């Protein structure tokens, strides 16, 4: 939050250090407990928990991406699930090709669903999909390109606010419909699944799962560091200024559209990365990831966690996802009630989310920072338009 970032004293003890320290410690803990404590002992962390945590970290990275555009730049994207899914599909295509001739039809070149559709060769856009480097590039380029095209169109013509949100939602909806079509060449309804291995390691093995978890933690830390760097640079201040008074920014001589496109693309790439790490851990990517509901769920993570604070996004993603896991296990009926209630209550009662609450508590503990408290209590100042 600005309250934390604005003050030189706190800048030195920035959230970056805390987040990376906590991430490192918990990753280390999970790794050690998974590897060195036998099943049944108190400290053992099960393989199931490891991949569950890996999923949460992917969500956290995704939430971070949304926070960059919404929390800092005021662009409420209801279509970030699309970038996540595109990253996931890029990874899925690679994993699909790694199956080789072990598919049901045993075709060494074509994935099963293409054989099923009587296709005789790979479509052109699958070229290079069995190359690791190419896949990694595509994980960023795919979502980034879409964000660039969409963003430069929308931001140049100054589509903003609710209009933009609806446009992003329409974008992901159009992609949802497109990917459902078999003719698109991405497995239609079923998506891409039945993956065997990644970089020649079996996806079923617990070690691979642990490695993927650690990789996700590292990616999250890196994503966090990059976001932290951007938001603490002069650019970060320009972006915050765009959120609060776009016209003023323009009359001061910046081109808000350029900054918006740029941050939108960065955010889309982070979302793509999250999707790419998610797919091998859950073993499937299908068009359902494009559904508008998914995208809007990401937004609620950020809202609950506290937008405009990078760590708030992480807290929100993990807390809400954990609640979802518990709820759907105990009483699946109630989950939508709870989620809906969260939307309503967090917007009405917790405009700054859990991070805002945390800020307040911290300030009460150390009353020296009276100015910070005053700022936190000032409601209208940082409202997103």
């Amino acid at each position, binding site marked *: 939050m600005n309250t934390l970032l604005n003050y030189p004293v706190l800048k030195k003890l920035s959230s970056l250090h805390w987040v990376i320290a906590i991430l490192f410690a918990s990753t280390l803990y999970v790794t050690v407990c998974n590897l060195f404590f036998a099943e049944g002992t108190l400290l053992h962390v099960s393989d199931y928990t490891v991949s569950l945590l890996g999923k949460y970290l992917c969500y956290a990275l995704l939430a971070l991406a949304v926070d960059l555009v919404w929390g800092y730049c005021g662009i409420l994207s209801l279509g970030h699930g699309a970038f996540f899914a595109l990253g996931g599909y890029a990874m899925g295509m690679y994993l699909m090709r790694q199956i080789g001739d072990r598919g049901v039809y045993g075709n060494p070149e074509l994935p099963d669903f293409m054989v099923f559709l009587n296709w005789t060769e790979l479509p052109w856009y699958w070229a290079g999909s069995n190359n690791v480097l190419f896949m990694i590039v595509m994980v960023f380029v795919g979502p980034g390109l879409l964000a660039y095209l969409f963003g430069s169109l929308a931001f140049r*013509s100054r*589509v903003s606010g609710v209009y933009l949100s609806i*446009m992003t*939602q329409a974008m992901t909806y159009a992609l949802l419909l497109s990917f459902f079509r078999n003719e698109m060449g991405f497995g239609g309804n079923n998506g891409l699944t039945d993956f065997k291995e990644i970089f020649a390691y079996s996806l079923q093995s617990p070690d691979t799962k642990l490695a993927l978890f650690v990789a996700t933690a590292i990616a999250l830390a890196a994503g966090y560091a990059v976001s932290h760097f951007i938001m603490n640079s002069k650019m970060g201040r320009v972006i915050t200024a765009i959120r609060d008074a776009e016209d003023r920014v323009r009359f001061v001589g910046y081109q808000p559209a350029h900054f918006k496109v740029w941050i939108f693309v960065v955010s889309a790439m982070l979302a793509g990365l999250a999707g790419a790490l998610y797919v091998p851990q859950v073993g499937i990517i299908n068009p359902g990831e494009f559904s508008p509901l998914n995208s*809007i769920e990401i937004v609620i993570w950020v809202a609950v966690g506290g937008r405009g604070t990078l760590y708030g996004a992480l807290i929100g993603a993990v807390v809400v996802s954990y609640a979802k896991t518990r709820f759907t296990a105990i009483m699946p009926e109630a989950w939508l009630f709870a*989620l809906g209630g969260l939307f309503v209550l967090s917007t*009405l009662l917790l405009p700054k989310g859990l991070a805002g609450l945390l800020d307040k508590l911290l300030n009460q503990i150390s009353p020296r920072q009276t100015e910070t408290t005053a700022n936190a209590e000032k409601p209208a100042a940082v409202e997103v338009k």
Partner: protein
Amino acid sequence: MLRLFSLLVFCLMSWHVAADDHLATAGNEQQAETTLASLLKQLPNTKLNKMAPLIKKIAATSAPQVPAILETLQAGELYYLKANKQLVHAQRTQHKKYDLTDLLSNAPLPSVTSSAIKKVRTNNRIRRQIGDLLSNMELNAKDPAIRLEAVKQLLDSPNKVGIKSVTLLHDNEPQSKIRELMSVVLAVEQLKAGTEAEKLAAVSILTGRLEPAVKNALVKALDNSTALSDKSELTRALSHAIDKIEQQGDLYQIADHLFFGLSLGSVLLLSAIGLAITFGVMGVINMAHGEMMMLGAYTTYVIQQTFPTLIEYSLLMAIPAAFVVSGLVGIIIERGVIRFLKGRPLETLLATFGISLILQQLVRTIFSPLNRQVEAPQWMSGSLDINPIFSLTYNRLYIILFALMVFFSLLMILKKSSLGLHVRAVSQNRDMARALSIKSSWVDAITFGLGSGIAGIAGVALSQLTNVGPNLGQAYIIDSFLVVVFGGVGNLWGTLVAAMTLGTFNKFLEPSMGPVLANIIVLVGLILFIQKRPKGLFPQKGRAAE
């Protein structure tokens, strides 16, 4: 408001009456029936070789029961009881067991075993005779509708006897429409087996007819004639006639797409119109708008369940009920949540999205997650046939009329009523309106209720077109928003034009690329359009709009 409803109810009633309009039945048939009864008595005792004249006599009575009796005989289901020679219609239910009904009165009789009854025997020749008689009888029927139907059938599947009777009947047919069709039937025959001159005359009769059978006959004739000589007069006449029919066919194809497009557009209009008020006029983003429609659809379902005997009137009852239910829910949402988020559109968007999830789950919990069956009243089914290749189905026709009615009523409310004046005042300058002692919070609640209520009415209409389930609303929310934005926010006419344009566009794309791709193309097109013109087709200009 009341005026709107009485108008709605009135209109729907009048359609109902028109659709229910039965044709009067023919007059005095007493005598025919007594003759028939005595003839029928002879059936059990008549030998097979004497059967043909008897059946001819029976047919000649032209009593109303004759067709049914002959059909029974033809199907081999005409029996008589061995005990008293009573004629019955018997249908075998299981091994050697028969269900009986009296042949004349159709009254059910106790079922019997095969030993108690005996079949009235027929053979192939008699069955064929019955078939010819039946079609002839229809051609001779008093009811012109039956005659017309019989001629149509004859056109599609010609038979010798039928054509012979048409030749005889043609000159005396009182109805010009039927006579015309009869000459078409004859012309098609001439085309098959006439002389060159007769064929030419036939072609001139057939030119411009849209019946598929006519086109087939012409094409066939053309195939045959080109085999003979290439540039004969007949060949030219034939290809000309075919061209003309095809041109007209294309024209009606377009009309058909247009009709489907307009009906889809009307659905879009209905779903967007409530949003045009809450979003367009008030500036409130209601993501639960689709769920208001869902509530309307479920209200229809509940009404049909509560009054199962009044299905014919259920929609009329559902319209005000849905308006009230959705309107009240809307007012509760406005008072409970939205008013606290004034001036924070993105938060409003999120909170109302949360509400939509809650409403969906609520419906899922109460009514189960499965789709519910909402029945269509009789008067909604069937279609209005304009010509053989173009017909308007009543449900789509009513949706179009209904959507337009809702639209214009709303327009009147906003333009003429004092509520409308207040709404416009508040939406343009809240502080000033308040200074003029307009209760802006009250206006907000009522306006929101109005928008939601109209969504409820839209739900009633949707219940006739799609599955009524918890996800009904979700399917429409994105489309509705796009329609409003495309048309230009705050402009009801824009919403109308946008809805109809999108609907038509979609339906014209559909045949060549399928519904999904058409939908995608329309979506992408819209996204691009709105980025080029963020204020839609008909933007509000001036400084107030900044």
